[in-house]
């Protein structure tokens, strides 16, 4: 028995289908530009990775909560692709998703001063995103539980990791899991800027520079992505995208705003995930790091890798997707699993977009300019949150001959 990923529904800066995202990853197209979905007159920073279809930003009316809107679309796509609700009973499917800060249309709120539940909602939550997520689950027949994981930048990887545990233990037959977030709106975009995490670079496509010596902050992105996770015994084998073999989460308990510079808890999460997978660090082929582009992130990640991999920390190939699409916060981990699937299927480590100059304080083997072709059997994916939660997921290439 293996726990496998068998389908994807995605609306992201890379594109709005699995195939489109794979092509955009391969092409290395920069998907960050100045915000198009709302008026940013007066903003000092305008860079963001917005959801695109065929390269064009999808615009929505201001009343729309984009994270709920795109999540709904993703779930519909996933259901069609995987026929999950035909193969599993409603109670066998749990819906675990990473989410983010709530959205209120400030223009309308200013005029009406009313905080209303979504139209037609029969649910009682004042947290709109929770009400909308529960409605998506009900509407689509996922009655095995609804959980929104809220660990900021580690939210969706906690959702996926917990889904992995639920299916592996037999508590649920299948999990629809991933994440959805958009902070690209007045309050949340400016709030992120006020927290001091955003790059001051005004050349939007080049603003987020993970691991680069010149990095000065991250860039917000948005998007939704959901996967179907199930036991390989129930899966349609030709549709298996990758295997999940290990997961762990730890907490820095260091500071709310900064990572532990020594990366101790992140290292612990990595070690626990490797142990959960029943492997040893020597056979992890490459690492897809959190890689935000903030000054404190890269040294902390390097420190963590040194604790786990020793001298290999400077040679094991690493990658971050955020240079290409920005930081999707509550959905970044789930989105970046797509990069992991790309690496496992194509047997390459992609170059980190906008990485040019190595930082002596984080001398990682960041792939630049061209993809690195290599044998990849086991891949480590990490994420770390604003607040201190760390996650590590071990993915394995799935060979049809596996069993």
């Amino acid at each position, binding site marked *: 028995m293996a726990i496998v990923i068998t389908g994807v529904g995605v609306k992201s800066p890379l594109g709005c289908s699995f195939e489109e995202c794979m092509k955009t990853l391969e092409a290395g197209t920069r998907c960050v530009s100045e915000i198009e979905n709302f*008026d940013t007159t007066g903003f000092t920073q305008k860079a963001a990775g917005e959801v695109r279809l065929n390269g064009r930003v999808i615009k929505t009316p201001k009343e729309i909560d984009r994270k709920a809107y795109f999540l709904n679309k993703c779930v519909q796509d996933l259901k069609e692709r995987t026929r999950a609700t035909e193969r599993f009973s409603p109670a066998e499917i749990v819906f675990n998703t990473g989410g983010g*800060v709530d959205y209120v249309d400030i223009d309308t709120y*200013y005029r009406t001063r009313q905080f209303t539940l979504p139209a037609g909602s029969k649910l009682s939550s004042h947290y709109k995103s929770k009400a909308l997520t529960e409605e998506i689950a009900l509407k689509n027949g996922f009655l095995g539980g609804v959980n929104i994981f809220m660990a900021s930048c580690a939210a969706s990887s906690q959702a996926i990791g917990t889904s992995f545990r639920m299916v592996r233990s037999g508590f649920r037959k299948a999990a629809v899991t991933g994440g959805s977030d958009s902070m690209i709106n007045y309050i949340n975009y*400016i*709030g992120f800027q006020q927290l001091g995490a955003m790059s001051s670079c005004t050349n939007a496509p080049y603003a987020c520079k993970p691991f680069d010596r010149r990095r000065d902050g991250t860039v917000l992105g948005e998007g939704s992505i959901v996967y179907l996770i199930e036991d390989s015994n129930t899966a349609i084998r030709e549709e298996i995208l990758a295997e999940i073999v290990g997961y762990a989460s730890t*907490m820095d308990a260091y500071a*709310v705003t900064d990572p532990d510079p020594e990366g101790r808890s992140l290292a612990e999460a990595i070690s626990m995930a490797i142990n959960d997978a029943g492997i040893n660090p020597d056979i992890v082929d490459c690492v897809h790091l959190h890689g935000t582009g903030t000054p404190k992130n890269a040294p902390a990640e390097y420190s963590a890798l040194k604790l786990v991999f020793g001298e290999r920390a400077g040679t094991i190939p690493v990658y971050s997707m955020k240079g290409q699409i920005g930081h999707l916060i509550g959905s970044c981990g789930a989105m970046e699993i797509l990069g992991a699937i790309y690496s496992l299927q194509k047997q390459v480590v992609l170059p980190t977009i906008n990485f040019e100059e190595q930082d002596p304080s984080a001398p990682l083997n960041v792939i630049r300019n061209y993809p690195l072709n290599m044998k990849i059997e086991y891949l480590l994916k990490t994420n770390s949150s604003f*607040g201190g*939660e760390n996650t590590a997921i071990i993915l394995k290439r799935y060979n049809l001959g596996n069993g």
Partner: protein
Amino acid sequence: MRVIYRIYESSEQIPVYDYISRRKLVKYFTRETMAAMVCAGELLKERKPLPETPFFYSSSELEMMEIYNEACSAFDSDSHNFTSSGFMERALPVISPLSHFKSMRNMTHCFISIEHGFKGDNASLIGSASGLLLCAMLSTTARNIIIGAGKLHADGTAEAGFAEVTSSELAGNKFLESNEDAISFFRVYHNI
């Protein structure tokens, strides 16, 4: 299984300063965080849990309307329509950065982890009682697990609950199949 539960009416002071060592952090707290800090403090009174102790926390409603009220108050003095440039010039200066902390749903989980030194397996969620209990049950540890939940009602009432549990204690619990808010578990079990 030991369970602590507290509820505070909207006008009621929450005695959070009796339960926190870093008092300057309190300005970042919502009333839910304060109530949760009290419950965690009561549960762990005069004890230092092992750093690897797993800790799972589930939140409920939200206090972020403070931000919108702050932003909109800047427009109250006249009848200006909402504009982007107006937002930047007038609303931004009156929005407190503290409000952004309060709107992030993992902050209660983080502040309690910092206060009590929890570094182990964890999750921060808005979920059902079932989700919280399943997270705890599936944790890869045989040791004691800390679970907590809180809810901030729209009228300012804050409630929270904390418990120290083991996987075996949770096995077969009726809340494993419950879609009610996670706080429901603590409302029931603190009386048992």
